[in-house]
């Protein structure tokens, strides 16, 4: 298993006014699997992938990535896990607006520890594969929403992470563009043998995934 969680719990607030967001969530994911996480707002989807992404620590339970238990107390270790083992695709692409597309990728890739030479060829191959070579020298604000999400996908894949986490990657796109991005994401994850977990509200998007999990009130239900 590439990712496993056991009895994951998360709550916010004090003992008097405790709001439970995750309640005893236990899940296993294998490499190359694509999974859609569905559910209404406030059901705990984003909290769950934030914990998987080492951005948030759980109140109880364990998370194991590649067989190693994540120690949430060590902020430095968490940053290293995010840098090396996880690729993120956010709702609003979140590209750095002051760098052009190529520099966005190069800057992130260098931080992930990829050598300049390897990084250049990796960027070229991703730009070609995602059909965004023409954006190379453009700033993110000069690209369309769909194009920006493609660049975000390229950024997430740069360092060949075993885990890809996407938070409503199609929310800001029309259906046509959204579908293209999801197809791309799923296709790339399968070919690179990465686990892909995508949070979505859209049941049409969920159809592209191998596995669909529904969340409600902090619990996970498999259909």
């Amino acid at each position: 298993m590439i990712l496993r969680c056991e009895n994951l719990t998360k709550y916010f607030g004090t003992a008097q006014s405790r709001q439970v967001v995750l309640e005893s969530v236990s899940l296993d994911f294998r490499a190359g699997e694509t999974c859609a996480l569905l559910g209404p707002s406030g059901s705990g989807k984003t909290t769950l992938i934030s914990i998987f992404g080492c951005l948030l620590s759980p109140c109880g339970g364990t998370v194991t990535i590649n067989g190693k238990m994540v120690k949430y107390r060590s902020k430095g270790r968490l940053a290293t896990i995010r840098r090396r083992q996880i690729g993120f695709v956010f709702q609003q692409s979140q590209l750095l607006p002051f760098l052009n597309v190529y520099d966005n990728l190069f800057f992130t890739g260098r931080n992930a520890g990829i050598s300049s030479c390897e990084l250049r060829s990796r960027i070229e191959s991703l730009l070609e594969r995602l059909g965004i070579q023409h954006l190379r020298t453009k700033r993110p604000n000069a690209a369309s929403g769909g194009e920006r999400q493609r660049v975000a996908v390229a950024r997430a894949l740069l360092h060949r992470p075993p885990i890809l986490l996407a938070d409503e990657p199609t929310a800001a796109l029309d259906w046509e563009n959204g579908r293209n991005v999801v197809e791309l994401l799923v296709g790339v994850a399968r070919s690179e043998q990465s686990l892909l977990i995508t949070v979505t509200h859209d049941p049409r998007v969920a159809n592209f995934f191998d596995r669909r999990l529904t969340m409600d009130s902090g619990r996970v239900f498999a259909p």
Partner: protein
Amino acid sequence: MFAAAISMLLHNPLRLFVTLAGLSCLFILSACQVGMLVGWCNTVSALVRHAGVDIWVVSPKTVAFDYGVPLPDIRIHQVRSVVGVEWAEGIYMDWSMWQRPDGKRISVEVVGLDDSSVGGPWQMRDGSVDNVHLPDAVIVDQAYLGPLGVSQVGEEFELSGYRVIVRGISEDVRTFTASPFVFTSLQQARRIDARYRDDEVTYVLARYKSGFDPIVVKQSLADEIPNAEVLTTDEFAQRTILYWMIETGVGLTAVITAILGMAVAAVVVSQTLYTLTQEHARDYATMLAIGFARLKLIGVVLIQSLVLATLSWILGTVAFAYVAGLTKGSAIPLEMTLGVYALLTAIHIGCCILASMLSVRSILTLDPAVVFRG
């Protein structure tokens, strides 16, 4: 990292331009205040430093060159008799009134030179320093020709009611006070000044004989000359500077203004960097989320503050050099020493880095999980 930090700064060129303009102006303000202070220090001690002697024997508790107290000229002979002294002469210095032909009077600082003309003007435009020994002769500086009413050599004026003739014009021999220097001979200075007797001088100047230990000779002079203080040229120059800069409060005012300039510069950098960091808070959060270490992001802020400090320093230095060039030869010249400028630069850069701490703090408290909140 450097390229990203610069790109972030350049992302809003208008703000960068305004910030740099503001910072450069504040650096110039501070540099001008300090430059004025250095210029004043050089001016108040110029005559002491340019005299080219090793020792000044002064009356006890003399506060500055400009406020001397008479010494009996027997001290000159006493100084000459000390082992290790090669040469000694007297010099006169006191305030007097200069009267122009149109009846206007102006206060002047009269300097009476002994036979070797030591302590006289170090740069002459017209005539020679030794002209002070001609009958009724005086030398004035070209910077004060207007206030003194002098247009050329050979003109006659009154000094404390005595007729004097301008026999030379010096160059760049300024005073810190509004009263110009008027050089004459020691004999004439004493004749003009009723407060001085014929056997009195203001200071005794001396030079060491080569091969003798200056410290030992100075100590011998201090032991053997009664009712007088023995100071090296540096000590007397420093005492004069301290009197004018501290006792009169002039130096303090300049220093306070310079510090205020630096403080305002720090606030400007602080605000700019903080605004920049807040504007890019989501970008920083994204970088944190995708695995950038906080230290690297703090590095971005520090690079930005260093770049702002360096660019504003370069612009400020060019402008200061230009302004200093314009004031050269004026009554208030802006001058600078390498050491003082290095200190000013270090403070400027230090303030800019210190100003980035607010931004650093905001990065330290940034939560990367915000990127998942839409």
